[in-house]
């Protein structure tokens, strides 16, 4: 329902503010004319323009869920050090842009006092990479379909991997992402390490809810495995549980059939995705752990597994080598051996025509 109308000149479709009105002068003046950049220390970059102008970037962590009261505090710092400009990154870090190098350390001090550690940068020239923020989703904070929480898992992981955010001590870029259900709003399908909330039980149909709230034919035809059948007599939907792989699409379409199950839902872990085309071409992530328990408030099994993967890679990878490239070199069998992760039968694709994922070569290692 539209909320109550307001009678005055109605402004709509104005779109976002023009970004140029939001740019600090040094950016505006050197727009499109940057020459190179350097990483001064973890969390601090300098970009040098053809004009000789320099802009210093100080990058701070961000839980993404921010109170307006915190935003105002951040704005205070931006006013003090950055002439009233502030920026966020595509991974939700906060960026302060300065022109005066001498102010950097003071700024850092104040930002950290506010509770926002500095880091998350990487220096390709030196092959020194820090871990950046985890891209994530709503979880129990706001969504109706999550198999797990989002922010809490992220917090637990980042606490455990915190040093890698502060220091550029990893051999290559490593992006972690999280989505709380298979809709994958965190778009975890192409990250070095990703976590996704998974259900493991078929939907529980509430006939009454289905009757009240669902479009039966489209829900039925929306099931990717054909596990649903309309029960027209009773105006409801029947589930062939043996065909269901718990994707939750039916619940997205029809509130009458949730898959939730506190003990059986959990976390799947994927690795080896990559977005950039640097060196090896970009690619999708692959599932390496089909399920870990949903264990709030700190998800220890999940944190341990992520840590193991990350540290195993970090210790074994050559400079610049991301997880995908590391696995290209060592082979999947060695990935499982080195990380100690068990190769479960669920990791073998059985959706649609999976043959192109099957190993058709005798080239493997022992």
């Amino acid at each position, binding site marked *: 329902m*539209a*909320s109550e109308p*307001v009678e005055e000149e109605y402004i*709509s*479709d104005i*779109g*976002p*503010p*023009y*970004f140029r*009105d*939001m*740019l600090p002068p040094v*950016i505006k003046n050197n727009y*499109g004319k*940057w*020459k*190179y950049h350097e990483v001064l220390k973890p969390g601090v970059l300098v970009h040098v323009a053809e004009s000789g102008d320099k802009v210093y970037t100080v990058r701070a962590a961000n*839980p993404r869920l*921010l*109170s*307006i*009261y*915190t*935003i105002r505090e951040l*704005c205070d710092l931006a006013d003090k050090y950055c002439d009233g*400009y*502030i920026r966020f*990154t*595509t991974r*939700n870090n906060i960026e302060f842009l300065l022109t005066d190098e001498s102010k950097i350390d003071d700024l850092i001090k104040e930002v950290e006092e506010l509770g926002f*550690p500095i880091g998350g940068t990487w220096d390709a*020239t030196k092959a020194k990479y820090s871990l950046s923020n985890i891209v994530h989703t709503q979880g*129990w*904070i*706001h969504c*109706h379909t999550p198999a797990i929480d989002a*922010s809490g898992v992220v*917090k637990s992981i*980042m*606490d455990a991997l915190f040093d890698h*955010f502060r220091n550029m001590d990893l051999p290559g870029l490593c992006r972690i992402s999280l989505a709380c259900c298979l809709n994958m709003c965190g*778009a975890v399908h*192409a990250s070095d390490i990703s976590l996704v909330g998974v259900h493991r039980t078929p939907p529980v149909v509430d006939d009454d809810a289905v009757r009240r709230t669902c479009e039966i034919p489209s829900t039925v035809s929306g099931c990717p495995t054909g596990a649903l059948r309309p029960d027209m007599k009773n105006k409801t939907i029947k589930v062939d549980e043996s065909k269901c792989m718990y*994707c939750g*699409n039916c619940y997205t*379409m029809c509130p009458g059939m949730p898959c939730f199950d*506190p003990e059986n*839902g959990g976390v799947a872990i994927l690795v080896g995705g990559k*977005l950039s*085309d*640097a*060196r*090896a071409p970009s*690619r*999708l992530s692959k599932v390496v752990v089909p399920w870990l328990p949903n264990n709030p*408030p*700190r998800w220890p099994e999940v944190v341990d597994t992520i840590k193991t993967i990350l540290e195993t890679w970090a210790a074994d990878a050559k*400079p*610049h080598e991301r997880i995908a490239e590391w696995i290209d070199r060592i082979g999947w069998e060695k990935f499982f051996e080195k990380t100690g992760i068990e190769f479960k039968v669920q990791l073998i694709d059985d959706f649609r025509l999976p043959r192109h994922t099957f190993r058709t070569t005798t080239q493997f290692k022992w």
Partner: protein
Amino acid sequence: MSDEEFPLLSELKKGPWPSFVKEIEKTAEHKPEIKDLLKQLERSYEDKITYWKHGGIVSVRGYGGGVIGRYSFLAKECPGIAEFHTMRVNQPAGYFYTTEALRKICDIWEEYGSGLTNMHGSTGDIILLGTITKNLQPCFNALAKAGFDLGGSGSALRTPNACVGPARCEFACYDTLELCYDLTMTYQDELHRPMWPYKFKFKMSGCPNDCVAARARSDFGIIGTWKDEIKIDQEQVKKYAEEGVDIQKQVVEHCPTKCIEYDPEKKEIKIDNENCVRCMHCINVLPKALRPGDEKGACILLGGKAPILEGPVMGWVIVPFIPADELADFVKDLAEKVWDWWDENGKYRERVAELVERLGMMNFLEAVELEPDPRMVKHPRENPFFFWREEDLKPRTDPWKIWREAEKGL
């Protein structure tokens, strides 16, 4: 707030990473009803289940999207969040803000909402997290006055997003922010009034590093690249070498096509540009010495999306290269053709990638008037099951006629 009240959540106030729980607490200090969010969340942590109900359609005047309706199962216990809708506010391209603009948003959200935000949502919007139905329209009006508008939701164009690009990056091969703004403004109607089979996303990265995940997270990814030779400043190569960068090991050995050579005597780099695949690695490592060429532009990838229904899709090349100065017009023209075709042929909740797979690239390329190119495929097909159109064929002969004739004998 006492930690005994929320023992599980209070665990998440510990540790060095900034705590979202503290952010909620801090908000609740000003807005007591937000304590109910902690209450419900603690309950979710105990019971390991969400307490948010499924959907609920709410909106503002004239718009079909931009607001996600949300109601609590715990309305009785947590009346402060019984209604808790989010508003998706279209971010300025590149996420640059004046503190003035940001403070305006804070003020508006203090007045009409929970005071909680996500900076930002994964599509790119400013997420204003939690308000009641009654406040939606006034909040929208106030935002509009402050120069902000809603982003997309539902079966609509979603808020376009871009990497920082030319604003602060030396690698940008086209103006990602300008294009992002241009598309957002041109398609306000598509953004605000859902009318397609499903959602559609644009994302723009200025170079193949893809800092905004365009290829994986948008139906229409626009990724900067160049066509001519990498520019080399041999003086800077020397400097890097002298500063101790092991160019052979750090650069040459990582080049995917082995098309870059380093002469350790002369401290010079030579690139066989015909075999360069513009992966960016050498440029990334030696930004002072190497730069993308002058013939800049972008590559367009179609179909990136999450796994529901047919498995995840990484966007694939449908246009290998468009020069930067033709990009905006080309993108609009092509996107409109794609929408027309999709709108006409797509099923309910069928993303464009899935439609292309269902109907085939031949059908798609013809409809949007693109020529096939080997750069569109990792490799040509392995099965010999192809379709022919009438114009490809000669008039048909009936085999039965030939055989019956034959059977008759001389």
